């Protein structure tokens, strides 16, 4: 059905009486009668005036809650790292950041991954180095001790040979004679002294010292020496002296003691210990001399 005359609009706005003559003609032409128009008009008015249903109150509450929830979410202030809408993957800065982060990660993680081997190598190296560094010292020590013992021997032999009237040629015999004449205890003590290393066998020294408690060693001489900065050297020298003193005691002869103390003094002078340590040792040696003399 064609409707070129806007009857649907006229029905909503005007009664039939309010229509113009042209409109009335058009309406009658389209609908047939005035009553048809009036019925249509009444229906539209009844429809428009129909009582409206009120929206339920619970529905309002639900909708408002939803609004509050949505609004709370939207109030969160988020600072974007880049402008929204731009394609991040097309930004060269993105690639630069990714590359930088990868490099940083590599530089941070690589040392940790190789650390499992390197520390061990470092430890091994350090131990080797320590051994290398320690070896010459101990060698020096043992050399100094052997030299000291050798010099003691030689001096003792010389003096005994002189006292006995031996010539230089027969000096070699003195040593053997001495060794032959010496009792078994003395021999053992000499052997001990030869094999003794102060740095390596402190317990052995203690043992020997306890065995020779009858030999007076000036106990207060060390107390007179104040601890100096060169403690290490002093200790070393004292140790050397301790060994030499025991050697001397083991000779258990007046001449031996005298000669050994002389040689000890020489040894001390030869050693690295200087000034304080040297003084301390000289004190001790003097004390030894006096004690031995008084003993005899």
């Amino acid at each position, binding site marked *: 059905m064609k409707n070129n005359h806007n009857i649907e609009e006229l029905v909503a706005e005007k009664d039939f009486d309010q229509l113009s003559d042209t409109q009335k003609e058009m309406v009658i032409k389209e609908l047939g009668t005035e009553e048809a128009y009036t019925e249509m008009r009444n229906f539209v008015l009844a429809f*428009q*005036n129909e009582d409206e249903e009120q929206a*339920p109150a619970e529905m309002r509450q639900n909708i408002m809650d*939803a609004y509050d929830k949505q*609004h709370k979410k939207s109030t969160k202030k988020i600072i974007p790292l880049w402008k929204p809408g731009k394609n991040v993957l097309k930004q060269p800065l993105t690639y630069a950041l990714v590359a930088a982060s990868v490099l940083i990660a590599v530089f941070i993680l690589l040392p940790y991954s190789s650390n499992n081997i390197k520390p061990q190598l470092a430890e091994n190296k350090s131990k080797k180095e320590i051994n290398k560094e320690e070896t010459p010292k101990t060698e020096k020590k043992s050399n100094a001790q052997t030299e000291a013992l050798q010099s003691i021997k030689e001096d003792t032999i010389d003096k005994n040979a002189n006292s006995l009237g031996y010539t230089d040629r027969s000096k070699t015999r003195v040593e053997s004679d001495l060794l032959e004449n010496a009792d078994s205890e003395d021999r053992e003590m000499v052997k001990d002294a030869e094999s003794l290393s102060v740095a390596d066998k402190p317990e052995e020294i203690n043992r020997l010292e306890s065995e020779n408690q009858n030999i007076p060693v000036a106990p207060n001489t060390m107390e007179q020496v104040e601890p100096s900065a060169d403690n290490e050297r002093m200790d070393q020298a004292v140790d050397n002296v301790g060994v030499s003193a025991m050697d001397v005691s083991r000779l258990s002869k007046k001449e031996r003691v005298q000669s050994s103390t002389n040689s000890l003094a020489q040894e001390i002078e030869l050693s690295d210990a200087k000034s304080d340590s040297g003084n301390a040792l000289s004190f001790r040696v003097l004390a030894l001399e006096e004690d031995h003399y008084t003993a005899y």
Partner: protein
Amino acid sequence: MVLSGEGKKKAFEEIYRRYSGRIYNYFLKMNRYDEVKAQDLTQDLFLKIIQSQKDFDHNKNFKTWVFSIANNMCKNIYRHEEVVKKADREMAYTLNATAKMETSMDKSRFKKALAEALNTLDPVKKSSFIMRYKHDFSIKEIAELTKASEGTVKSRLFYTLRQLTVSLKEFDLRESHEK
């Protein structure tokens, strides 16, 4: 709408006050006066409004925008209720026959008869009719909403009006609107 989008609750409450009744009644009429369904649809519509406040084009008419959403929602419902619709048509004829027997004008009965008569209509015609005569939409606005030409809308409205008038002819409608 702008203020509501910015989070001002009072603005949203004003929107609700103006449109909740209209939309609820629109859904009622479009869904055989099913109150539960109308309520659900109204809530869904307002949720859509809340969620898409920022997307709203402020150059457009808010009322048209809201009813276009409502119309689309009804379309979706009708698509899934073709079988029910046929059953309703059969029922409408029965009710219409019963109404014919009644001579006295009863508001509630008219309402029921109107609902059933509306249910016999095609959804597009029904929504156009409701929007035009209940919510004062212009022909142009209805044409935009239904994506049809103005001439088509006019023809639809005229046809629907004649059909409904015939269906409810037995009621003395003059008394009702004169009261």
